[in-house]
């Protein structure tokens, strides 16, 4: 069934579970490094490996990060909460139970406003944000394309086992109709921006720092009880989230239209064609036998600590974006591009350092981003906001033109000093010695009588034809405006 027909007939409801890996130095329950890359199984301790006798101890910073997230989502922070064991067997789960929080989440009852591209605000109610640990990583060997099916065996790396996670669960999101796919993607994008602003995670979707499970159900109308839902696991980009929701709505509508029933199950999303396929049905096997983790004691964040964390929260992305849109007068699209490039911080700092928003954006999103991409490094590591502001100032002062400024920037990127220092050292400043410029102008006029004729005849754009030889003679250091004035004075004067 076509999506448009599906949403014309049915009212979709969403439920979204987002896992975010916290960027702490160590794991949730042990002091192994919380870092990726490097060799397999080099970031484990007896605890993250689930060896006999090993015990967990809670990472204070992980608790603080979880509280930050809870507060940013408008949640209440539990007076006291306990961890629980979620028991199930899986080779990447070292202890064969996941230490999580069951009915005592650290944060609950929150809400955030999700802003869609056209400025529509959708409030999303947060049921809870709870803490848990990540599992190890399986690599399937021997099957086609590394997928689980058909593999001969699997290899397990426990470097990720025990990495702190916060899982954020929404209440059902209803009443969004045909905008459900857009809302789902925008919600996760909003969370991603919040995580980054809070400094609790790098929140890179492509690295799996943020993973979303999307529940979708349909009902005939808004008054009917919620329909049976499916849960599409591990959807890892905003576009995929949009597509997955769209696909699920159309798929379920078709089944319902034919008088069928939705099977409650987990489903997998396929990047290749945007479809989802059946995983396993919910069943008795989901009897996780939760019980309070006896090896950990309750966490009871003092109200003083919570308030201290609240006071230290940074400005949240939605508020910041509104403020910058007002202050800078740039478009929604432009600021979204800056945010997506991860460059809002340096751009804003550059404006604070004195550049105009346009100039700051132009440098960071243009030349610096280009060099960063070429070198495969982070743009904000190439230059400081102060450098960029200074560079722009040199242009505004007439000491550099755009072309020279790019040369200066290259020197700055190479670590050769501030823009002024590089400019001085390389002699890149615009030539103000009118003698040299006059000579170059005279030479150009003498060598191009035909062009001079045209100018005399009123074809002012012919001046451009003289600029090349002049710039060449001055090694690009001539100020184009001055040269132009000089030519006109000579010819028409």
């Amino acid at each position, binding site marked *: 069934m076509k999506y448009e027909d599906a949403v014309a007939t049915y009212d979709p409801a969403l439920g979204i579970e987002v896992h975010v890996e916290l960027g702490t130095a*160590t794991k949730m329950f042990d*002091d192994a490094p919380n870092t990726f890359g490097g060799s397999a*199984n080099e970031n484990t*301790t007896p605890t993250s490996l689930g060896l006999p006798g090993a015990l967990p101890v809670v990472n204070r910073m992980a608790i603080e990060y979880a509280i930050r997230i809870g507060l940013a989502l408008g949640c209440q922070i539990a007076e006291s909460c306990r961890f629980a064991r979620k028991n199930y067997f899986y080779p990447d789960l070292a202890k064969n139970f996941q230490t999580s929080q069951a009915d005592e989440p650290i944060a609950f009852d929150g809400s955030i406003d999700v802003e869609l591209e056209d400025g529509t605000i959708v409030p999303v109610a947060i049921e809870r944000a709870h803490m848990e640990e990540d599992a190890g990583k399986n690599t399937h*060997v021997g099957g086609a394309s590394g997928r689980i099916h058909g*593999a001969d065996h699997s290899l397990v790396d426990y470097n990720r086992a025990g990495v702190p996670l916060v899982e954020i669960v929404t209440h059902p999101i209803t009443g969004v109709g045909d905008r459900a796919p857009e809302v789902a993607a925008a919600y996760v994008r909003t969370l991603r921006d919040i995580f980054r602003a809070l400094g609790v995670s790098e929140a890179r979707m492509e690295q799996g720092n943020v993973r979303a499970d999307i529940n979708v159900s349909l009902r005939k109308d808004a008054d009917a009880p919620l329909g049976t839902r499916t849960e599409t696991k591990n959807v890892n980009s905003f576009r995929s989230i949009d597509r997955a929701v769209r696909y699920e709505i159309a798929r379920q509508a078709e089944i319902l239209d034919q008088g069928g029933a939705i099977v409650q199950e987990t489903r997998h999303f396929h990047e290749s064609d945007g479809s989802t396929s059946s995983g396993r049905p919910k069943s008795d096997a989901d009897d996780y*036998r939760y019980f309070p983790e006896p090896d950990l*004691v309750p966490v009871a964040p003092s109200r003083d600590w919570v308030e201290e964390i609240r006071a230290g929260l940074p400005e949240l992305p939605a508020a910041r974006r509104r403020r910058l849109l007002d202050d800078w007068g740039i478009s929604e699209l432009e600021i979204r591009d800056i945010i997506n490039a991860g460059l809002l911080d340096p751009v804003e700092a550059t404006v604070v350092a004195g550049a105009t928003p346009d100039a700051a954006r132009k440098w960071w999103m243009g030349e610096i981003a280009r060099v960063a991409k070429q070198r495969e490094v982070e743009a904000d590591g190439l230059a400081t906001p102060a450098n960029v502001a200074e560079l722009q100032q040199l242009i505004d002062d007439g000491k550099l033109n755009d072309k020279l400024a790019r040369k200066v920037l290259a020197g700055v990127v190479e670590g050769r000093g501030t823009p002024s220092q590089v400019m001085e050292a390389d002699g890149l400043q615009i030539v103000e010695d009118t003698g040299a410029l006059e000579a170059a102008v005279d030479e150009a006029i003498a060598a191009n009588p035909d062009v001079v004729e045209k100018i005399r005849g009123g074809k002012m754009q012919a001046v451009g034809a003289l600029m090349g030889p002049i710039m060449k003679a001055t090694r690009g250091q001539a100020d184009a405006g001055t040269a132009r004035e000089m030519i006109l004075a000579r010819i028409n004067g």
Partner: protein
Amino acid sequence: MADAAAITAGQVEHLAELARIAMTSEELEKTAGDLNEILANVARVAEVATDDVPATSHPIPLTNVLRDDVVGSPLTAEQALSGAPASEDGKFLVPQILGED
């Protein structure tokens, strides 16, 4: 609760699946009998576990035992793998996984 319906061998089979223990039908039968006998006794706990009694999960009440976020000394990969029944490329080698996540 003491007269709760007896556990059947079928239920034990389900428990054995949850607990990942392969059992013969004889073992299932015998275990069902054992569990019924034990449960007939221990189910008495429900008699006194009234709503007004709070649960105790930890014998000595402590709270907020937290660790600073400082890296310690992890195991080397060699140590981590030292007890592995099988390994390959510095990873634990496990049989093919049929169930999926």
